[in-house]
């Protein structure tokens, strides 16, 4: 006999009320949290220990303002609460998380959830902020007014009141008290009775009060569809019921909030005492940061400072890693002196390729540290407010911000976050725009180019400016692409901006460091797995075939060369004759207008599954090609000395300013991530849009890179 399942408790609340933080505190898990709404887009569950009351299964659901589900993530919540998710139970209790600083608006959801007839406990979260604002909340009175359901104050972020929350869950499960429900005006109640009767007779099921309400009030009619209640009879019943509400003097689609808010105003009378402390500090900061003109300037300055700090702080640890890689290479290579093929695989392939990739770890760590601080402080949501002017112009929804912001770290969670957007067309347009955002995989490419070619020649200021510029390139292209898509292809209706600005707070070191650690672990694990495997394959393709006649021809062609110089020439001839060399040379004419030689072409082509592969690919091809000269093993040194061997550019540097900028622009725009393309197909329900995105981005990348290269070589003076 299988053991009885643990009680299921659903965590529900408005966006950005700290549900995931509370979930983590109660379960000990590490669900992603952030100081902006919409971080959770799907359900996530964990076990919560209630002490003597046993254990429960706690499920964290996406935030929502109302049960009138419009977007897919809101639908998940409604389905979870009504037990309509396949293989899932209906929750035994609901833990409603409420922002203690805004009870009236937050309790609207509580009032709707009360209609579900599920036992409830209420957590007034962010109690510390309420205290700072001088709000005094009579928890006992609120509990009594709600019909005796447990109500507790907590500050999940500070870890305050978590034990009280555990006790409240236990009490809700034991007492099974239901919250007091709103009273419906007579015409609305009559209309609800009519819908209930029709559902009963047509479907043969007894609907709950909440189900009847959702069927009547939701304009989209998604609840009725989920019931399987379709056809003209449904339309007839709903039209008649809504007419009844209208004749009673109510708008059928506004009657629900009116009734709930009337109920809540009575319920909250005397519960909250305003202490008079103002939110003036936050408002003053917002006046500055959200200023129409000053806001974007400050935003640009913050981003510039961020990248300058990343470069400056990472310079030393990066040098240490590179020195370590050199030492390792110098130590390991002689051990394989008797087996030159194996020596090349280990030294030129694995150590040079993986080492080149790993040397960017400090920059990744510092970047995510700063991004974590900005996110947790609440500034990122302000950045959304500033960016909204751009978004609204190009027809994207205000809700596009979170997916686009997530896209700056990785496009895949960004694409998953588009589920928060109600309008399917706006969702599609946002999903199309997300891969344009400069994800962290592009960062090593920019960092390599900026630190090797921009910084040393033009100074650290231009290095940071180029970095910021590259992060803006994707955005600059995403805007017109989204504009064309929303206005002419999909014809998306303008959406109101709905993002709620979170409060400012001091970032919590534990959360910021944890996120930094997660990204670092991911980066290192990628170096040890995917990059390692691809490096070995790239090495093999760049090493074989190894025909001795190639070396003989190289020696005969350059009889004046001796010693190391001759050895270098021989190694270069081998790489040129390798499978990779032949392939690169065959495809190079396509990329010639962008200023890419065959080695860069090989790097670009090898990077289509994952863009950061170019760093390790260049590490291998330059390490192999430079042969004996590559005593430093450092990729940037080899790249700095690389010259065109033939053609009109013979003798000039391959990595000129024009080529470096073109390469960065190409990587900023090209769709070089197999996982992103696959996820786009998954989220848009087919390969059509994924292929369209891939083709658009690749063509745009080539055009932009060619434009940049041709413009710079014609108009910019050499440094």
């Amino acid at each position, binding site marked *: 006999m299988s053991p009885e399942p643990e009680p299921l408790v659903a965590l529900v609340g408005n966006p950005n009320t700290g549900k995931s933080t509370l979930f983590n505190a109660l379960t000990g898990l*590490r*669900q*992603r949290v952030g100081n902006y709404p919409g*971080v*959770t*887009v*799907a*359900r*996530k*569950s964990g076990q919560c220990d209630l002490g003597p009351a046993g254990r429960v299964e706690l499920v964290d659901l996406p935030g929502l303002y109302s049960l009138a589900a419009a977007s897919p993530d809101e639908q998940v919540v409604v389905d979870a609460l009504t037990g309509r998710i396949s293989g899932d139970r209906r929750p035994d209790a609901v833990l409603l998380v409420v922002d203690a600083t805004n009870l009236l608006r937050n309790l609207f959801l509580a009032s709707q959830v009360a209609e579900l007839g599920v036992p409830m406990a209420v957590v007034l979260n962010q109690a510390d902020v309420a205290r700072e604002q001088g709000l005094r909340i009579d928890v006992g009175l609120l509990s009594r007014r709600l019909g005796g359901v447990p109500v507790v104050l907590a500050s999940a972020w500070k870890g305050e009141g978590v034990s009280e929350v555990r006790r409240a869950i236990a009490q809700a499960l034991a007492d099974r008290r239901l919250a007091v429900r709103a009273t419906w005006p007579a015409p609305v109640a009559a209309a609800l009775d009519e819908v209930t009767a029709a559902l009963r007779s047509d479907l043969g099921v007894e609907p709950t009060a909440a189900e009847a309400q959702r069927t009547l009030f939701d304009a989209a009619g998604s609840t009725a569809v989920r019931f399987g209640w379709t056809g003209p009879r449904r339309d007839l019943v709903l039209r008649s019921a809504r007419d009844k509400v209208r004749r009673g003097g109510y708008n059928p689609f506004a009657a629900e909030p009116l009734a709930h808010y009337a109920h809540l105003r009575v319920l909250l009378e005397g519960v909250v005492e305003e202490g008079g402390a103002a939110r003036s500090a936050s408002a003053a900061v917002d006046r500055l940061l959200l200023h129409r003109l000053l806001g974007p300037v400050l935003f640009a300055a913050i981003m510039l400072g961020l990248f300058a700090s990343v470069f400056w702080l990472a310079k030393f640890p990066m040098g240490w890693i590179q020195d370590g890689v050199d030492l390792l290479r110098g130590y390991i290579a002689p051990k394989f002196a008797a*087996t030159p*093929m*194996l020596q090349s*695989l280990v030294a030129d392939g694995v150590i040079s390729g993986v080492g080149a990739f790993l040397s960017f770890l400090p920059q990744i760590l510092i970047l995510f540290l700063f991004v974590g601080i900005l996110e947790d402080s609440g500034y990122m949501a302000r950045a959304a407010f500033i960016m909204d002017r751009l978004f609204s112009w190009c027809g994207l929804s205000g809700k596009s911000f979170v997916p686009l912001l997530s896209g700056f770290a*990785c496009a*895949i*969670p960004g694409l*998953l*976050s588009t589920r928060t957007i109600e309008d399917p067309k706006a969702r599609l347009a946002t999903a199309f725009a997300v891969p344009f955002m400069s994800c962290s995989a592009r960062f090593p490419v920019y960092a390599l180019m900026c630190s090797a070619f921009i910084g040393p020649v033009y100074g650290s200021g231009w290095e940071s400016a180029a970095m910021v510029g590259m992060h803006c390139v994707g955005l600059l292209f995403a805007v017109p692409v989204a504009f064309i898509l929303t206005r002419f292809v999909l014809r998306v209706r303008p959406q109101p901006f709905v993002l709620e600005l979170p409060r400012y707070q001091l970032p919590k070191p534990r959360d910021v460091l944890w996120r930094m650690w*997660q990204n670092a672990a*991911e980066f290192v694990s*990628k170096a040890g*797995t*995917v990059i*390692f*495997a*691809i490096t*070995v*394959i790239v090495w*093999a393709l760049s090493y074989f075939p190894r025909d001795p006649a190639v070396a003989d021809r190289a020696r005969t062609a350059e009889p004046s060369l001796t010693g190391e110089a001759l050895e270098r020439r021989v190694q270069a001839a081998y790489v040129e004759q390798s499978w990779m060399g032949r392939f690169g040379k065959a495809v190079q004419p396509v990329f010639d207008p962008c200023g890419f030689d065959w080695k860069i072409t090989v790097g670009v082509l090898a990077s289509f599954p994952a863009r950061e592969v170019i760093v390790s690919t260049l590490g291998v091809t330059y390490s192999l090609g430079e042969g004996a000269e590559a005593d430093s093993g450092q990729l940037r040194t080899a790249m700095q000395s690389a010259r065109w061997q033939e053609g009109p550019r013979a003798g000039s540097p391959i990595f000129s300013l024009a080529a470096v900028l073109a390469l960065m622009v190409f990587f900023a725009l090209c769709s070089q991530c197999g*996982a*992103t393309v*696959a*996820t786009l*197909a*998954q989220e848009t329900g087919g390969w059509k849009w994924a292929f369209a995105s891939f083709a658009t981005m690749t063509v745009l990348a080539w055009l932009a890179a060619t434009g940049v290269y041709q413009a710079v070589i014609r108009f910019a003076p050499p440094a």
Partner: protein
Amino acid sequence: MNVEAVIVSACVGAAFGWLVRRWIAAARRRRDGSCAGGCGCADKVGKGR
């Protein structure tokens, strides 16, 4: 074929085989409706448990 060539072939073959296996696993995950990316985002925004 000498021992060195055997070792190198085994390394390259293992790397290729591992990448193919990983690609097939990602395709399976995608078919099941979860995230196919190797970026760990499934831990941050999972579809299911």
